[in-house]
């Protein structure tokens, strides 16, 4: 469904790792991520959860910590099976998402490549950890299989939790399909472990729609594997007592009320923000861009992320049959937000529709805050609480709004 990115032609190499070409103990050859993508085989027909497992299998993950919450439980359990087969060095069930994210942090502080999954209320329970991960520069990857977070209890798809992740200092990506998710997991480690980025990544997808449906996915051969994480390329010391433990500071800044203290904290936050921005060049090199566009010269555009894009694509097909031409912008990275790309893609649009699987309409707000003449942005349609978004609803809403 997604546009194929021609990486063979580009020859972009992300890893300068010395271990490239060597084999790990599972007899997988350490391979640059671009070469892995280029070596993708025939399509497999898999659920999103199985795709997460298969990506982790070739991602050289050292440690994963699991906790059950729908709809990520299956993926988390499948990763346990990989551990039993020997693909991971350690794996266990934590006691809550708050603890799991702490355990992930501990493992990352100790120099391991760490992967975990969570969803909905679990994401919110874990929330205190996310700015800590970013501030501690831990390149942990968490796959967030979005679901409802409100009361009354709902386990159904809803992307509201992503709004809470936006200002944590993490990279936040949004996969539309199982193929995206596969690619994003592999690319994600390579981007977030770059020394000038070195930040955690929330790899989001829409729960059930992506995790529990089957889709065709092109995967890299299983005898290949991402090059291992090198904790000594981290911009902050790895906590393994293998480098001189000099005093970190003369006075702890935590309680000081003076300019140096404020300035230290401010510059640390600025640095995290800057590191998010610096991830662009690496992401573009592997994924071919932060957005994908179709026919953005048209007056009407649908701009969104996740499965709302898939529904938008169908709506475009329906409208096309009635003679209404609509273009499409698919946003892949929410943090960093593709400012320039969206500005350019929407430059000529007269109507910009932002369908979303949540009531808040946070994506529409992001776009409204960015582009000039933002009365062009129509925030909707919205569905929530697990409702599907029929493409007819998007098409109707567009027709109603433009008076067609």
């Amino acid at each position: 469904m997604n546009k194929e990115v021609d990486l063979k032609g580009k020859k972009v190499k992300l890893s300068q790792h010395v271990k490239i070409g060597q084999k790990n103990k599972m007899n997988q050859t350490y391979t640059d991520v671009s070469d892995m993508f280029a070596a993708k085989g025939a399509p497999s027909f898999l659920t999103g959860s199985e795709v997460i497992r298969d990506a982790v299998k070739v991602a050289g993950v050292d440690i994963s910590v699991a906790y059950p919450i729908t709809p990520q439980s299956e993926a988390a359990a499948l990763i346990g099976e990989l551990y039993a087969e020997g693909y991971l060095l350690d794996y266990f069930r934590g006691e809550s998402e708050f603890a799991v994210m702490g355990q992930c942090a501990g493992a990352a502080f100790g120099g391991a490549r760490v992967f975990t999954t969570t969803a909905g209320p679990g994401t919110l329970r874990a929330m205190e950890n996310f700015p800590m991960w970013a501030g501690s520069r831990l390149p942990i990857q968490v796959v967030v299989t979005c679901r409802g977070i409100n009361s009354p209890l709902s386990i159904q798809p809803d992307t509201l939790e992503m709004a809470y992740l936006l200002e944590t200092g993490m990279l936040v990506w949004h996969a539309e399909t199982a193929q995206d998710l596969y690619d994003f997991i592999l690319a994600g480690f390579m981007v977030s472990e770059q020394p000038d980025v070195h930040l955690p990544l929330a790899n989001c997808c829409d729960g059930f729609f992506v995790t529990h449906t089957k889709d065709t996915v092109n995967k890299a051969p299983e005898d290949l594997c991402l090059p291992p994480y090198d904790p000594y390329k981290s911009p902050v010391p790895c906590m393994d007592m293998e480098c001189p433990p000099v005093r970190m500071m003369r006075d702890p800044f935590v309680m000081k009320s003076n300019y140096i203290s404020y300035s230290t904290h401010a510059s640390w936050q600025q640095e995290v923000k800057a590191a998010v921005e610096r991830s662009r060049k690496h992401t573009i090199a592997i994924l071919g861009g932060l957005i994908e566009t179709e026919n953005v010269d048209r007056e009407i555009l649908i701009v969104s992320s996740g499965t709302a894009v898939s529904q938008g694509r169908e709506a475009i097909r329906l409208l096309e049959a009635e003679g209404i031409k609509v273009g499409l912008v698919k946003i892949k990275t929410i943090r960093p937000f593709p400012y320039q790309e969206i500005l350019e893609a929407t430059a000529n649009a007269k109507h910009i529709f932002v369908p979303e699987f949540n009531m808040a309409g946070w994506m529409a707000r992001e776009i409204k805050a960015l582009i000039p003449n933002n009365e062009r942005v129509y925030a909707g349609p919205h569905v929530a609480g697990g409702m599907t978004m029929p493409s007819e609803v998007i098409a109707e809403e567009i027709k109603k709004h433009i008076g067609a």
Partner: protein
Amino acid sequence: MSKDKIKICEDLADIMPPEYQDLVEDATYGDQDRGWKDVGSSKELIEQHSLCAGCPESIAFRYVLASLPAPEDTVFVGSTGCTSLVFPHVAVQNIHSLFGNQNAIASGLHRALKVRFPDKVKDVVVLAGDGATVDIGLDMTLQSWFRQEKFTTICFDNELYANTGGQESGLMQKGFVSKMAPVGKLFDKVRLAEIARESGCHYVACLTVSKPNRVEKALKNAILVAREFGPTFIQLYTPCILEIGKQSMEGLDEMKDAESIGGRFVYKEYATDDVKKFLKEKDEEAKARKKEKKSAKA
């Protein structure tokens, strides 16, 4: 970490701060028999601290850091509170992440170090206050013990939230009037040592820091047992003299009162039979090393 890693390159020796030079020349990295008696005669792993004058926690820190059997391969995990003001001054790597998740961090950290350094002993030590250990972090404290995570947990028990200004904590004694317990605390001091024993800790000690010998012994026992058997726990009474209305010089008396007969901190130690046997062997080994050293000197 090999001691070679902290050596200073000759060309840069004159610009390195004197504290670092002392650390290279006079610190006791690599000596498994180091102990509290090295305080004052060799470079300590703790620099000046920012705790209150006379705070028993500061002396507890000195004893703990002086008694680690292998500081060159020890990573501390702290939590929020007065201890987090001291850790930035300490010449052992340490992690502060959040308030209460210290045993979760230590679980992940210890596992990562184990898979990355399978042939090396890397000690992980949690050091946190009573609020972090018992109240906000109790779940993670206990779960790490249930899972038999092989690291030592130390609780600096000052029986209240000191850093935030003296509020009630679970380890506060019943009836004590404090902030957030305006009519006195209504329930008993949580029996953490017993909980630790029942939760799977292989070695538990509860004591004050009035006697450095005892602190050293308990710490060494706890770390050696954690390496071989599983979780260990030490509860140290480090009264907050400020918040219980004592003077700077009264900390020691307060601890001595608390550990006298009938007090809350009468010395307590639990160990499984296997651990008792193991510790006896370790004691004999240490004695033999001491004897050898003595005869080598003579």
